[in-house]
């Protein structure tokens, strides 16, 4: 009953014309950035961040969330029509989606992707709605030691579960934590690593780091990639899937939804991992695995549902615990903090308008995306006809504008350029830069939690082991590290397989 009345409150906020309009703008912008190769949801959200400063926090998070799941929808369009994943989570959709296009079934592939995304998005919001409040209620019992242990565990799990070398991930997270320590020491008030630059007293901002690492470095890597692309434009009449295709897609959509939601809750590149897991599962349990890679509709339905479901799952640790599970939720956390809102267990009680308005807006956003994506797909693909030589200077200009307008500071722009160059070289050397951004965001929280814990215990580090919840989580951290050190998987994940 409580949930229903809260949801009613949420819909009363989400269905106001102003919130609806911003949800629509977010979804539209997200769809476009999802379609454009080289501009992922993270860049899209970072670019739109300054636009939200003049808005109230509910509208801000509704619009940014619209960009996130809009990008998930948009990424599938280019994957299916051109075999170009607009963003990383759509890589698996390329395989069978493009094969369907070559067989003349582009329309049904797009429709199944949109229907799967809609079902997954809607069902996973129900999961978010039901799970976030009880998790937050448990988290209210957490003290600083538990938070410190939880943050450490989250960072380690992210490094462990992400694709690529675990050690490189850890290294990036540590560099991020170090960058996050720049600024005034929260306990003593002394400036650390500020090099007498007054603007650094508040620390290195998340926006310049994220825009540099994801926006500017991406443009550096892709500026010479391609000109205009040949695009197939499906007609509205061609979008209807056959009864056979609908029947074959139903179970993969449900399985993809469940997989995506569960993986989304765990820190890491959830939407990417979930689409890989879903594709592998569908192929494994299929009676005709040989059809995969040659236009199997299950290969589109499963991964597309999984990556959309993962986006909702990723909001559970953010909203219930105040801990982002990946780079995109991390930037959204920064957006809320700019508005003076601290996500976490108390948010649901202290600001139900934000929490439930956001939940309700996700239902609305999914409907908006379905309406946007099916009839207007022919219109959207026209964007891909614009030569990249025209697009990338404007994306760079948006990066510059976005970073400057955050604090009206050119120091932030210099930081973004510096991180752009760093990101360019790191990516050339196969380092994933997402843990770095996460480290920058978590560093102040982690440091504060550790130092508050030590203040509670009079400097005794055993406080982390003596408290049952913190001790259990730290035991998990130790088990993960020891397992990695002594397992064969460590050496392969370190990067030996690359050779």
């Amino acid at each position, binding site marked *: 009953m409580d949930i229903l009345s809260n949801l009613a409150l949420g819909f009363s906020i989400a269905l106001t014309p102003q919130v609806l309009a911003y949800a629509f703008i977010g979804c539209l912008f997200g769809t476009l950035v999802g379609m454009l190769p080289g501009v992922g949801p993270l860049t899209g959200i970072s670019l739109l961040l300054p636009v939200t400063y003049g808005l109230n926090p509910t509208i801000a998070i509704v619009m940014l969330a619209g960009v996130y799941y809009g990008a998930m929808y948009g990424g599938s369009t280019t994957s299916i029509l051109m075999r170009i994943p607009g963003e990383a989570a759509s890589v698996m959709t390329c395989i069978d989606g493009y094969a369907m296009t070559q067989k003349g079934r582009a329309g049904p592939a797009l429709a199944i992707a949109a229907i799967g995304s809609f079902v997954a998005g809607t069902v996973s919001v129900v999961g978010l709605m039901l799970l976030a409040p009880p998790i937050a209620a448990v988290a209210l019992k957490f003290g600083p030691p538990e938070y410190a242990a939880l943050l450490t565990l989250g960072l380690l799990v992210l490094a462990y579960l992400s694709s690529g070398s675990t050690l490189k991930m850890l290294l990036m997270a*540590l560099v991020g934590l170090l960058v996050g320590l720049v600024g005034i020491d929260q306990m003593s008030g002394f400036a650390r690593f500020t090099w007498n630059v007054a603007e650094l007293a508040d620390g290195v901002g998340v926006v310049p780091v994220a825009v540099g690492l994801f926006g500017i470095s991406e443009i550096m890597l892709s500026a010479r990639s391609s000109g205009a692309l040949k695009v197939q434009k499906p007609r509205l009449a061609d979008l209807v899937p056959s009864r056979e295709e609908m029947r074959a897609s139903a179970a993969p959509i449900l399985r993809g939804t469940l997989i995506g939601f569960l993986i989304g809750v765990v820190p890491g590149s959830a939407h990417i991992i979930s689409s890989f897991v879903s594709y592998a599962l569908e192929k494994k349990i299929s009676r005709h695995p040989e059809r995969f890679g040659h236009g199997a509709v299950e290969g589109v339905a499963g991964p597309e549902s999984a990556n959309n479901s993962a986006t909702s799952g990723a909001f559970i640790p953010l909203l219930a615990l105040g801990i982002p599970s990946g780079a995109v939720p991390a930037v959204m956390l920064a957006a809320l903090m700019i508005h003076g809102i601290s996500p976490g267990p108390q948010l649901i009680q202290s600001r139900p308008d934000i929490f439930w308005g956001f939940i309700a807006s996700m239902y609305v956003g999914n409907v908006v995306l379905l309406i946007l994506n099916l009839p207007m797909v022919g219109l959207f693909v026209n964007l891909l006809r614009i030569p990249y030589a025209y697009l990338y200077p404007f994306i760079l200009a948006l990066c510059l504008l976005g970073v400057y*307008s955050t604090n009206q500071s*050119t120091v932030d722009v210099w930081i973004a350029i510096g991180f752009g160059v760093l990101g360019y070289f790191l990516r050339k050397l196969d380092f994933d830069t997402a843990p770095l951004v996460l480290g920058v965001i978590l560093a102040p929280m982690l440091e504060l939690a550790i130092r508050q814990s030590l203040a509670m215990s009079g400097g005794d580090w055993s406080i982390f082991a003596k408290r049952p919840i913190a001790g259990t989580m730290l035991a998990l951290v130790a088990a993960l590290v020891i397992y990695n050190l002594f397992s064969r998987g460590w050496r392969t994940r370190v990067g*030996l397989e690359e050779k």
Partner: protein
Amino acid sequence: MPRLLAVLLVLAALGLLVHAGSPARLVDTNLADFPITTLIVLLLAAATFALERAGYRATMFAFLLLFLVAVERRPAWLSAILSGGFALGSFYLINDVLRVPLPAGTWMRWIS
């Protein structure tokens, strides 16, 4: 905390050195995009330097025009229209509609 992080970083770096054997070296990676990267960094740096001196509109117009005409060899008239449209349009949206102040530039202030 910084000292603890420094120790962990050194340990992780040593781990990478020991486990990776002969890691990928920067000189071995494909740097075909290095010239355009350098150009992007130089133009971004010039724009950042000019932003609060020349103002947002003039800087953005010059930044985009240089990119489109000098780097990408696009027609000057079309580039000028697109650059001007973006510079003025984005200034109006961010500065006037959303009320996030952007630098107007000394000469613009002088004109108005």
